[in-house]
């Protein structure tokens, strides 16, 4: 019954921040407290009325159903974590009220999206997310930000139009917009001719928002152009909103093959571009793509363990990617450049804590044993059956390690104390789940935890993958291979969306 309060509280607070400009910062804290209180209620045993509800108590056929399932809870926890980190990161900076407002709306929209079970509601909230992140990316009003942001809006809007077509097709045949009704209809008659069409429209529409390659060609520009705190939010959280919708759709339509193929393309494409990228923030943005590839393959495998792995990995990726973006933003601000070689040359001027945070993020993202990247990847590796999946996951791991090997010079000495990173507390907040992922997960989910205990075979495998990645980096460094960046312009982006839709449709029809 109080589920709508998750998003509505943030929206109210955002509006309050406009009305009382002076206390704009305070609303951020209040929002955090409200979220924590609501989550606490959700965990309390005396809350059976919290799990699933139709907003406003209307009937299921026309109303909007909200549900707090494990996926939603997982992402709400991630939201709270990132909110906390970003608030700390921004706290000592001058915060304009309009920024706070947009941030609150962003969090509100995220909360709404993870809860909703209704196709059209998903459309509306995705549009809200698009508009808010559109404004946030270009917040500093630099021209490249404005262009990246405009490109994002145009492509995302075309994608959402395609999604709306899919909603229309689904609604006509099901007679309701709820995901549950849709699932029933598909299960009753899996051979119906409208299913491939609806699935192709919905999936290709939402893929534009989900950071999936050949659909989301706007992503590298937008995520690398945004201010650091916003990049952390976008890469850690907002991009997952598309993935959340895909997870929901994967529960309805038979998408296993499509997701695995998209996952392979996304992961490997992202890794290749990340290896070739010389710009730190851009490399991180490409890595968002390659990590989305992990999630998609996990979803495509479609068994219980993999699904749990996906949840864990979404959480883990959010924490270390946000850490990397925040630390990278701080480092680039100090040096005044985003070039990796430039940063490495001037590494003595980067505060030690920032470098430590970057190192921790790197270790986590390449999947070295004690950290959460490894812990969350392990169940995926375990569950992904089939040699194709295994090879792709292996290649992905190697690509990740190879591209992050570029950062190694950054961590060499001298280790003198220079400057003071004003936002180091936010690193601590994000470092906690990275280091203590297993205990935290256990504490939250009890004995039904998603993760297996330490597995020596997989641990050894991970170390081997990282070592291979380092070798690959040493080899590739001598090649001057630069994949074309002109792929990420507006017109190729449009082509890719249309082409992707046709391809997905044919795949679903024939496969």
């Amino acid at each position, binding site marked *: 019954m109080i589920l709508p309060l998750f998003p509505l509280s943030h929206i109210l607070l955002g509006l309050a921040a406009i009305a009382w400009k002076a206390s704009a910062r305070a609303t951020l804290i209040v929002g955090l407290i409200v979220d924590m209180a609501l989550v606490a209620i959700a965990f309390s045993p005396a809350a059976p009325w919290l799990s699933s509800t139709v907003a*406003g108590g209307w009937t299921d056929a026309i109303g909007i159903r909200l549900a707090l399932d494990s996926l939603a809870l997982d992402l709400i926890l991630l939201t709270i974590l990132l909110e906390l980190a970003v608030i700390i990161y921004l706290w000592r900076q001058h915060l304009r009220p309009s920024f706070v407002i947009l941030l609150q709306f962003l969090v509100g929209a995220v909360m709404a999206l993870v809860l909703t079970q209704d196709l059209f509601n998903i459309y509306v909230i995705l549009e809200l997310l698009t508009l808010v992140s559109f404004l946030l990316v270009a917040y500093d009003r630099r021209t490249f930000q404005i262009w990246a942001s405009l490109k994002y809006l145009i492509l995302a809007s075309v994608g959402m139009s395609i999604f709306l077509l899919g909603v229309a*097709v689904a609604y*006509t045949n099901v007679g309701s917009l709820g995901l549950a009704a849709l699932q029933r209809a598909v299960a009753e008659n899996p051979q119906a001719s409208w299913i491939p*069409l609806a699935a192709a429209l919905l999936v290709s529409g939402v893929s534009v928002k989900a950071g999936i390659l050949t659909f989301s060609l706007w992503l590298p520009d937008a995520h690398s152009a945004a201010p650091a705190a916003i990049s952390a939010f976008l890469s850690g959280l907002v991009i997952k909103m598309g993935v959340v919708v895909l997870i929901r759709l994967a529960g309805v339509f038979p998408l296993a093959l499509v997701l695995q193929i998209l996952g392979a393309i996304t992961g490997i494409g992202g890794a290749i571009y990340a290896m070739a990228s010389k710009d730190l923030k851009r490399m991180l943005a490409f890595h968002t793509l390659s990590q989305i590839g992990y999630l998609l393959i996990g979803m495509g495998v479609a068994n219980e363990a993999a699904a749990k792995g996906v949840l864990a990995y979404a959480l883990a990726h959010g924490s270390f990617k946000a850490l990397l973006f925040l630390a990278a933003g701080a480092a680039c601000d100090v040096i005044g450049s985003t070039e990796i070689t430039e940063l490495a040359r001037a590494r003595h001027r980067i505060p030690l804590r920032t470098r430590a945070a970057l190192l921790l993020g790197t270790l986590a993202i390449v999947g070295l044993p004690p950290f959460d990247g490894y812990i969350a990847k392990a169940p995926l590796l375990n569950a992904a059956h089939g040699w194709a999946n295994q090879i792709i996951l292996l290649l992905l791991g190697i690509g990740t390690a190879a591209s992050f090997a570029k950062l190694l010079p950054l961590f060499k000495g001298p280790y003198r104390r220079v400057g003071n990173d004003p936002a180091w507390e936010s690193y601590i907040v994000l470092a906690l789940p990275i280091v203590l992922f297993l205990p935290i997960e256990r504490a939250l989910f009890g004995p039904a935890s998603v993760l297996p205990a330490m597995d020596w075979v997989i641990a050894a495998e991970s170390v081997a993958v990282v070592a291979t990645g380092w070798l690959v980096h040493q080899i590739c460094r001598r090649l001057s291979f630069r994949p074309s960046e002109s792929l990420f312009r507006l017109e190729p982006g449009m082509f890719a969306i249309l082409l992707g839709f046709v391809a997905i449709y044919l795949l679903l029809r024939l496969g």
Partner: protein
Amino acid sequence: MKRIVRTALAIALSLAACGIVIFNLPISEGATHQNDMTRLATETGAPNLVSAIYLGARLYDTLFEVLVFTVAVIGVRFYLLRRPSTARATPIPESHVLQASAQILYPLTLILGLYLALFGHLSPGGGFSGGVVAASGLLLCVMSIGAETIYRRLSGAGIERLEWALPMVIVAVCVLPVVFTRPILSNSLPVGQAGHVFGSPSILLLNILIGLKVLIGSWMVLYAFILYRGEI
């Protein structure tokens, strides 16, 4: 040459995408949920079923839509007005005929907007369209007496404060039922006689609030565009 190839490719792909949908179109099944709909009409007291859904069963969507609109207003103002003003807000038309006809038309347009907002639950219309129509009435007003004058009069009325306060009130109205132990986003005011203006007070209230909000928001967007002298 490259351009021709690109054009051909664009046309071919667009047609392929459009063809896929056209040739797989489902056969329409006709209206369902007739029962749900009539029940909805009696529960909300609004004979206009679109309004009953828009502000009743799917109020949650509408809330986010109002928010999208608010974000647009914030964005337009933030990016257009934060610049050294080269503004010389002159009335738009040069011809006296236009000016004179604007003077006659604007009260009519304002009244039409008011009607659409107030009777949205009985006849076609609603807060959103009412607000926008009223805003275009204000635009006609600009044509006859100039933007600056209107801006000064309206900001005297605290219009900007209202623009931010109204969405808050709307969200609050939606959350309020929880105080009376009714579900959030339900219509909490008692339903009156169907077909009457006050037949569904909740929807009427929301229509008025949204209409006012949209009127002010559209006016702010229009004013930002009037002030801006860019170089497109």
